[in-house]
């Protein structure tokens, strides 16, 4: 619809519009919005008092307090600003495998859905791609829900490929974006756990509110289709392993995969980060609506 993927049906978009991004901290925005800002402003939400200074708007003089204390105090209110939302999409080669699982396709859907939630809430969105080739994503903020089509078009030509060091790449990105805000990282996180935790930890250290969205293939998670003697080749490093797979081995493999996801989730929860896991053999719309809290969203 209007250049958006088929999954973005009118019904799904209506449901996305009812969502908004939830943060555990207040972040300064770039314009008026719906999120409380650390700045004092003109919202209805009272924040503090201060002594009246000449030139202050005497509409904000608390006359009741003046009656009790015989001093002039000015009421200060909370500022409401938009939220700077950063969405990182992992476009490394691992996102292309297994092809039948369409991991990268669902990663893009997730990123677009999150972006739409932010844009529909009046927030600014910056989409950033880690690795990949083919498409060019403008590393600047966009706002306004109509800009979702533009983002979808930019992501459309993107092809996963290449290899990158997760922690180092995120460090570079962190230096580039400068302003704090909400961060979504959409990735399969199939890399060394140490690299994942270091990368995610940098964002928490930078006072970013982070949600890690892990995308895994259904076949990938279960080792489905692998049988007998198989030489597996790592899509990024090219490392080769020769394994014999049977029912027992596949169960062992699945347990290892689940353990990897549990460790990432455990790390996120300990650090107060949001974590959501989507396996591609499940319905995408259903996942997005049901995992609202895990995704760091709210109705």
């Amino acid at each position: 619809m209007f250049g958006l993927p088929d999954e973005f049906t009118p019904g799904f978009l209506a449901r996305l519009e009812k969502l908004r991004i939830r943060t555990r901290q207040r972040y300064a925005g770039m314009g008026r919005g719906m999120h409380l800002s650390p700045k004092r402003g003109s919202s209805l939400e009272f924040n503090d008092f201060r002594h009246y200074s000449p030139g202050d708007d005497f509409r904000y003089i608390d006359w009741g307090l003046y009656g009790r204390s015989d001093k002039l105090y000015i009421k200060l209110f909370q500022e409401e600003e938009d939220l700077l939302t950063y969405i990182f999409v992992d476009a490394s080669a691992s996102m292309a495998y297994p092809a039948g699982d369409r991991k990268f396709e669902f990663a893009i859907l997730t990123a677009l859905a999150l972006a739409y939630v932010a844009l529909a809430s009046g927030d600014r969105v910056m989409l950033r791609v880690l690795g990949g080739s083919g498409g060019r994503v403008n590393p600047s903020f966009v706002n306004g829900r109509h800009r979702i089509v533009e983002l979808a078009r930019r992501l459309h030509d993107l092809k996963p490929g290449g290899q990158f060091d997760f922690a180092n790449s995120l460090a570079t990105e962190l230096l580039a974006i400068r302003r704090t805000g909400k961060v979504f990282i959409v990735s399969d996180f199939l890399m060394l756990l140490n690299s994942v935790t270091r990368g995610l930890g940098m964002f928490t250290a930078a006072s970013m509110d982070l949600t890690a969205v892990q995308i895994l293939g259904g076949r990938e998670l279960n080792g489905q289709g692998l049988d007998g003697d198989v030489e597996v080749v790592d899509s990024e490093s090219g490392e080769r392993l020769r394994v014999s797979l049977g029912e027992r081995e596949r169960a062992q493999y699945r347990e290892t995969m689940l353990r990897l996801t549990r460790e990432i989730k455990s790390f996120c929860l300990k650090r107060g980060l949001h974590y959501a896991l989507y396996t591609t053999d499940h319905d995408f719309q259903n996942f997005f609506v049901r995992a609202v809290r895990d995704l760091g969203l709210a109705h």
Partner: protein
Amino acid sequence: MGLLYPGALVFFALVPALLVAYLAKERPTRVTVSSVMAFRALRGFRRERFGGWPRLDWMFFAELLILSLAVIAMAGPFIWKQTAPLAVVIDNSAAMQAMTPAGRSRFEAARAKLDAALSAEDGGGEISVYVTAPQPRRVAPPFDSLTEARLALSRIKPCDAPNDRTTLENFLGNLASQARVAKVIFAGANALAAPIPARIHPIAVGDAVANAAIGSFTIRREVLGAEALHASLTIANFSPETRTLELAVTGDGKEIAHAREALGARETATIEFPALPPARIYEAKLAPDDAFALDNVAYATASSVKKVSILFISPTPADAQGLNSIPGVEVAARTPDSYSPADLGDFDLAIFEYAAPKEMPAVNAMLVMPPPGDPVFGLTVTPAAKVEIAGWRTADPLTDSVNFRLLNLRGGEYFGTHPWMSQVVGGDGGAIVLKGERGAHRFIATGFNPFPYLGRRNLPMSVLTLNAIGYLAGLGTASGYRTGQPWLAPAGVERVILPSGSAVAANPGTLFTAVSEQGIYELAGPGGATTPRAVNLADLAESDLSNSPPLRVEAANPASAAAPVMEKSSLADYVLGAIIALTALEALLVYRRRRRVAGAFAP
């Protein structure tokens, strides 16, 4: 169940080899995955582990089963099976073409009855189908089912050849004596004479049919040098009443002779046509039509009238040219220097003019004024400036119709008394013409030279020459060719075009056996030129459809009834079939598995 070659079971020792092959066989499927992290926890190939063992999945056991089946197949498994092999013999001789009053041929009636008889069989054993003419033979390997046997029967057609009665009797006797044949069903025109062997079940379809037939059709050149040919035809009336038969002879499609003959019941007559004009192919037709059309027609060819081939050896070969003008004579001339005794193999007779052979000729020969001192014949020769005929034998084929008074002989020679040749024509100085036989060959010696042959310009000499050649050639009736009787393919013939139009390759000097059809066979040489050859049924015994004498079949054990036969039934075919099916199934499943893996993980 048993094994024909139990020793083959030693190949079960190959099972360990299968394990080795299995361990070494499988090339791993290469699959690109997003990350190999989770695979690191798994152990490597089992076969690469110390003390490893093949993955005992269905594929391994399928291959083990295939190997075991292969070893069992090598051992030749069989089971004992009780069968009742059946021999079906159908008479396909010419007489079976005769139409019955029911409106179908004897052969069709026999086939229908055989079909009904086969329906009553339980089909427990193999069925062999035989035909009887020209010689008894099996039409195909034994059939396992009644349906196949019926199909084979439906494809058989009666031929134009008669049965070889003695061979057929012996054949049926042998069949009935074989332990492997439980029952013989014979359907034919001839009944079987009692006692009938117990295993033979005859089906007779030889109801009497009134028939008139041409028994033979021969053509000969009665007089050497005559253009016209003499035809003799034998006709017979095998009906119980007197019939007037009309015989028409056509030459190359044009009627050239006609005769009418009234024949009494079972009477035979010979009809002569003494002067048939020359034609390539002659066809005789007997009217009126009857139930057996085959013997109402007969063929003959002018080429069947044998030509006399002469090798003329002379220092003056030109003397032979006149002989070529004699109808039915072919001459080849050669000088004595170029002559070799082996040359005589291609000729009927030889004429030595002013020459004598160095060894006794292998053919009949005529010596014309042989030189003195000939060691082979030992003729005593006295040259004379003029030879005078003083007397001759009057009742001799050489002197027949020769007017010796008009014979004007000039120079020549007289022969002295010869040990084995007798004088036919003599003069004052001795014999002028001698003749004799030696080593089954005829020889003539003349003291004068009748050549060159001048025909009517020197009639007495020409008659004498024709008499001499006729005597040496031994002119007679050319025997025709009969259906079912093979003949030697003549030299230079590459293929034979049958009366049906199909061509059969022929090797000169070998027997040509595709002679089941009556009609004209065209013998084709390398240049495409063809020579016709007539082949006729020419068998009045076969044509006598009202009198089919019963066959006398003698079996080794005539009283023994049909007994079931225990025979080994091989299981190797089934085992091999199972091997092929298992192999195909394995290949299919392996292919599908590889494709599934490749499809799921390919980029």
